[in-house]
């Protein structure tokens, strides 16, 4: 047992600010983790309501609720916010809460920078959201921001570029903090190959962020100068190349999609062993698989661009390298299955979300494999098949793992057990709703429905109606989640230090709720 229990008294006379100032000025990793998670939840509801508006418009052919311009703004902002405002901040929230706790460290390496990394995010969010009321409305060029379309837009396009810069800055600051913490602040005896898998996945993710965010910053800066200062990076008439933007963008954005999923792998790799009461199968190969996925992610970017027309050799290279990613990803799925095999399984809400993650993420993986086959991708590119594919990966992958992680650690964070009955309701409604939304989209894409369209021809009607019904079911069941979280914060059954029977790791050695200051003297890992 560590000294965590006494830590609080030691610091008793250094009273930290309370009220709003506590949150504005905090340098405490737990406070900052909480801030990130609330920010992410608020953004989930805002981007989620945009998704519901999109789906409401698509319930029937014809234009009913939106005009095409506004529809494009909705899809673009929905995508941008889900990625940069929901998934990434949620994972940062987990990193802030859990990395020091799992390493036996008292805090993050650079607490003041940590505060900054968080507080610039709401600024970016305000820039993005406020652009809805600016002349010309919000950005409508897709989250991919392709020129020349992106050059045409109004002032909100410049604000979005600024927001992207700010969010990138935040991610880089966060990553520096995470890497330094992990490399320097581990408890004595906690070697790299003993670290919990969640910490490993974040270490690798942080490197991905540092490598790719500057690439994105470069790309959007070139857009900015093309828009305002007469450069022609992406304008063929001025000697530039619109396809070059796509290369630069996807060189960032393909690793980015792994940034959105590797921490999810980490969370699930904590949850499944706990509720299987068995150590994670193939720990070392999990680490290597994560690293190989990260490395491969840098050489496959052009599989998002099979339809721009590239030479045969390039198409073959990007097809084969993309298919290769299925190997380490498969290894991970097999390892999770083997972890459950011959375990002693129980099905609390975190485990349910983790199991759903494994099954449904695999469906996303299979459709990814289908898309890796270049000739097939050329048919399916920019159709609803792709929308189905990435939502299986992002909703049942990233988002479900976030739910799994929150249910898993909520007792540790709040000191109270969450309401298991409501948790199960949340789970079942989300899983069923999610499949009703996104499964039919595979058929829509195969049958030829393009994505990013506000209106469609008649043969696509039925599946769109099903998807819309599912979307509302999924969307509204998230209110249950909000209730569960609020209830756990306000009270409930007291959680012991060791919340889950099968859980292992330093975070379970401190009391629940985890005291404001933990591990003032480092615990020793044998």
């Amino acid at each position, binding site marked *: 047992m560590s000294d965590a229990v006494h830590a609080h008294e030691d610091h008793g006379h250094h009273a930290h600010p309370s009220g709003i100032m506590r949150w504005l000025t905090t340098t405490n990793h737990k406070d900052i983790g909480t801030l990130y998670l609330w920010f992410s939840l608020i953004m989930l509801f805002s981007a989620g309501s945009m998704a519901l508006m999109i789906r409401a418009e698509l319930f029937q052919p014809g234009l009913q609720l939106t005009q095409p311009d506004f529809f494009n703004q909705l899809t673009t902002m929905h995508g941008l916010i889900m990625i940069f405002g929901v998934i990434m901040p949620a994972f940062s929230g987990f990193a802030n809460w859990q990395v020091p706790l799992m390493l036996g460290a008292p805090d993050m390496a650079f607490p003041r920078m940590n505060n900054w990394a968080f507080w610039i995010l709401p600024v970016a969010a305000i820039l993005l959201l406020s652009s809805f009321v600016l002349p010309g409305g919000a950005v409508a060029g897709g989250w991919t921001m392709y020129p020349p379309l992106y050059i045409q837009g109004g002032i909100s396009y410049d604000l979005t570029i600024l927001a992207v810069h700010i969010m990138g800055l935040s991610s880089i600051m966060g990553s520096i903090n995470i890497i330094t913490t992990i490399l320097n602040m581990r408890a004595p005896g906690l070697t790299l190959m003993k670290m919990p898998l969640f910490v490993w996945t974040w270490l690798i993710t942080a490197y991905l962020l540092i490598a790719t965010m500057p690439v994105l910053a470069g790309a959007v800066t070139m857009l900015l100068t093309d828009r305002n200062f007469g450069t022609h990076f992406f304008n063929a008439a001025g000697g530039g190349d619109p396809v070059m933007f796509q290369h630069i963008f996807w060189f960032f954005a393909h690793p980015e999609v792994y940034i959105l999923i590797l921490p999810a792998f980490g969370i699930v790799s904590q949850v499944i062993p706990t509720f299987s009461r068995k150590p994670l199968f193939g720990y070392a190969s999990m680490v290597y698989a994560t690293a190989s996925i990260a490395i491969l992610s840098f050489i496959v970017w052009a599989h998002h661009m099979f339809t721009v027309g590239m030479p045969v050799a390039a198409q073959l290279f990007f097809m084969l390298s993309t298919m290769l990613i299925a190997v380490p990803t498969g290894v991970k799925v097999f390892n999770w299955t083997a972890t459950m095999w011959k375990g002693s399984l129980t099905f609390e809400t975190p485990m349910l979300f983790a199991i759903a993650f494994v099954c449904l993420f695999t469906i996303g993986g299979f459709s990814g494999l289908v898309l890796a086959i270049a000739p097939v991708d*050329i048919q399916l590119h920019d159709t609803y098949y792709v929308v189905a594919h990435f939502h299986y990966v992002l909703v049942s992958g990233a988002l479900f793992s976030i739910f799994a992680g929150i249910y898993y650690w909520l007792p540790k964070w709040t000191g109270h057990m969450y309401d298991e009955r409501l948790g199960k309701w949340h789970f079942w409604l989300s899983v069923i709703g999610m499949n009703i939304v996104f499964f039919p989209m595979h058929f829509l894409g195969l049958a030829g429905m393009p994505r990013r369209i506000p209106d469609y021809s008649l043969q696509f009607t039925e599946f769109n109606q099903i998807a819309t019904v599912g979307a509302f079911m999924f969307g509204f069941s998230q209110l249950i989640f909000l209730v569960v979280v609020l209830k756990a914060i306000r009270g409930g059954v007291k959680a012991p230090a060791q919340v889950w029977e099968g859980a292992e790791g330093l975070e379970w050695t401190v009391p629940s709720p985890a005291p404001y200051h933990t591990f003032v003297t480092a615990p020793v890992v044998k």
Partner: protein
Amino acid sequence: MKSTWRWTSGTAVGLLTQPALAEYGYNLQQPASQVAHDVFQLHNLIMLVCAGIFVVVFGAMFYALIKHRKSAGHPAAHFHENTTVEIIWTVIPFIILMGMAYPAAKVVIDMKDTSNPDLTIKVTGYQWKWGYDYLNEDISFYSTLATPRAQITGAAPKGENYLLEVDEPVVVPVGKRVRMLITANDVLHAWWVPALGAKQDAIPGFIRDIWFKADAVGTYRGQCVELCGKDHGFMPIVVEVVSQADYEAWVAGKKSAAKRAEADNTREFSVAELVERGQKVYESNCAACHQADGKGLAGSFPAISGSKVATGPIADHIALVLNGRPGTAMAAFAKQLSDADIAAVVTYQRNAWDNKTGDRVQPADIASARGGAKVAAASAAQ
């Protein structure tokens, strides 16, 4: 051997999904060209392999979920690695993948071979219509959405080919290798006809090519599939595949129509003629942004009714229509519209709604403005 296997797997999935459920569209559209056939087969093959893996892996997982429950009294084992197993499940997927990559690579190579076409057509994407130039025939036209606005807003019942119909389809002969050269004029678009297995991004300043050979006479429909702004969802493509004889008749008809249009460019029109013609040109080219009532869309697209340009000097108005406004969605219509059409639409705009200028613009004015515009552009470039 291999082809038998591919055929079997393809048919197996095909039987499961295609004919029985065809009307609901659970799989790719019925292929109508060699490439589309190949893609269909590839997709079925991969689906079959994925389905097999899914059943095996999740069969094992669900077995564990049911049998290895704590509540069923199953004790936890403690193994947590097994090098042999881990090597096996790394190597076997690798081999399966290479098995899929081989037929896929063959199709890639075939798709990319655009040599020896019987016919070459250049396709240009515009916001928001398609332009087609038959390079060997000297035929050019634009193809725009034919679905009436009233169907889109719900004021009229929707027709059978709602949003998939155009005023001027592309016409090609059956069984001929058609090469499409694809480019764009303003932003990215993408030309896609699913049943023909033909898709290619249209990139301003660059030309890319694809090919197809249609198996059967018929009408094949597709859409623009690259987000290209407001009317991205309203840019359909219709390919009419006809017999060689019908094709030749179509070509002849197009050529005589072109001659008639040529004659219009040198004629004098009355105001009434210009306004009548101009209204049609306006509706198919301008109304999408500036709206049928000329009021525009606040913030995005300026109004024409009462606008400074449409009531100010005629030369500026003509120059704007010819050259567009760079950096905005206002396209340059110099190449898209004939002198007679531009004269008509400018006259219409200057006389419609609140713009009662009484001005009249003749095709000859446009022809001379074109000369002037060229000089202006040339001096701006220096």
